[in-house]
């Protein structure tokens, strides 16, 4: 009896497995095709061109900057959300929704929204332009802002998950021993959730690296200034599909390597 029970819980019904395999294929096959179609022989030459290197350097610098900013902004926001557990339902849900929206929003919409806020005729942008002569679109800073907008939720939710699952008793102990709230946060809470923070940063970086829609809408596309790898890949599709595939492959490789280094529990979906 016990054995039969173990068997039936250990295995899935075959239709479920079959459908799951189809689902997996939907996700993986396009990437397989990319790898199969990649111009392997010409790859070193394609990826070594100065235009690609320029986009690569720009992508990495902006994504690292965006991740750093996300760390500074995101950890306190994650702490606030974790703290909001004791809030009334509506404000708690609104807070969570506000952080989740950029995750589900088409990035192009994010780009339009950023333009409406920070563009030369935008809500804040107009004032920045008139007062300081500062225009944000078409600058490398705009790329970073677009990346922060789309990547910040990844960091926030990873850190929030870590905060929730961490053992709060140490914090209590520290507090009863006379540590201030700030001291508790710095010396107890942060080290406790450090793996979650690291995982969140890695996810955040990967998302920033892949950012396309918000960037092209808000920051534009100028080689060396705003043309990141995804945009270079999109433009290459107009004239040289081989180069586009090579660039896409590069982005895929970076993402996969980064994700493989993450432990299962920190992947999105397993923390929420």
């Amino acid at each position: 009896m016990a054995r039969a029970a173990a068997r039936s819980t250990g295995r899935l019904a075959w239709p479920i497995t079959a459908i799951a395999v189809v689902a997996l294929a939907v996700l993986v096959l396009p990437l397989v095709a990319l790898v199969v179609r990649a111009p392997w022989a010409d790859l070193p030459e394609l990826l070594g061109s100065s235009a690609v290197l320029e986009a690569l350097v720009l992508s990495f610098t902006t994504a690292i900057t965006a991740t750093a900013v996300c760390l500074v902004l995101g950890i306190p926001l994650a702490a606030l959300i974790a703290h909001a557990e004791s809030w009334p339902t509506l404000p708690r849900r609104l807070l969570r929704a506000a952080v989740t929206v950029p995750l589900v929003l088409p990035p192009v919409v994010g780009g339009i929204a950023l333009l409406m806020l920070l563009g030369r005729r935008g809500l804040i942008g107009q004032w920045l332009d008139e007062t300081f002569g500062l225009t944000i679109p078409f600058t490398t800073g705009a790329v970073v802002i677009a990346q922060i907008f789309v990547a910040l939720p990844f960091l926030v939710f990873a850190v929030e998950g870590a905060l929730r699952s961490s053992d709060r008793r140490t914090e209590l102990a520290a507090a009863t021993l006379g540590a201030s709230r700030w001291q508790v946060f710095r010396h107890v809470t942060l080290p406790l959730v450090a793996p979650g923070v690291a995982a969140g940063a890695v996810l955040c970086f990967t998302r920033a690296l892949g950012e396309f829609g918000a960037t092209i809408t808000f920051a534009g596309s100028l080689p060396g200034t705003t043309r990141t790898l995804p945009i270079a890949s999109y433009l290459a599709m107009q004239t040289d599909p081989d180069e586009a595939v090579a660039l896409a492959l590069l982005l895929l490789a970076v993402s996969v390597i980064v994700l493989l280094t993450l432990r299962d529990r920190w992947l999105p979906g397993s923390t929420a």
Partner: protein
Amino acid sequence: MTRSPRTTLRTATGLAAAALVALALAGCVTSGDEPAETSAPPTETTATLEAADVTVLAAASLTEAFDDLAAQFEEANPDVTITVSYGGSGALATQIIEGAPADVFASAAEPPMQQVVDAGLATGPVVFATNTLELVVPAGNPAGVTGLDDLANPDLRIALCDESVPCGAASAKLLANEGITAAPDTLESDVKAVLTKVSLGEVDAALVYRTDVKAAGDDVEGIEVPAAADVVNRYPIAAITDPSSDADEAQVAAAAAFVEFVTGDAGRKTLDTYGFGTP
């Protein structure tokens, strides 16, 4: 910008699951088989086409003109549905070569069409319109732009098309002819994206087709550039003849009829109103 998963799948047929996916996706993607005509018996006018869905891929600069032409064609042929997908001509050519479903291709320049012809997917493209560039500024011309020379001013915000798309290639040629080294702040992937940045006031000046200036209405102002007359973009159109396509006869006939319509008198008239030149 629809992309067919057909090619992607073709390369991966070795994998067992591919067949299943193909079956699942086929339901969502292909729409070649239309329900047979039930009510209307064949009318006397032989011009009426059978029910068909025609997919047209057209250059972004054709947006307004082709929306209009498609509507006119549908009105004359009630059983035909024309779906137009707009984008950069080069990207559209790549999509067609990669197997995107397309019955007609209208390009903003000859090289992308040539790629499609070379791939054996179209024959005998016909040039049906011409276009030239014009300087465009936001309404009121806040930066006081006067001519092509202003595009070289690094203090101004300038948008141009990327050289990989026809309007960018034409812009580069025009600027080279005039000996101007432009200082662009962004190189966009199609002409409509450039125009948007102008109408939003995000850039001070840009080069777009004169038809786009016309289409944008009061949001922008055009500044004629005499030298632009030397750089003429020729727009070819052709029906796509993909031997591996699942298009039925009605669809092929409707696609050919649409090409004929665009290149014919009615099409010429409509294109005129949108500012396109006669080839």
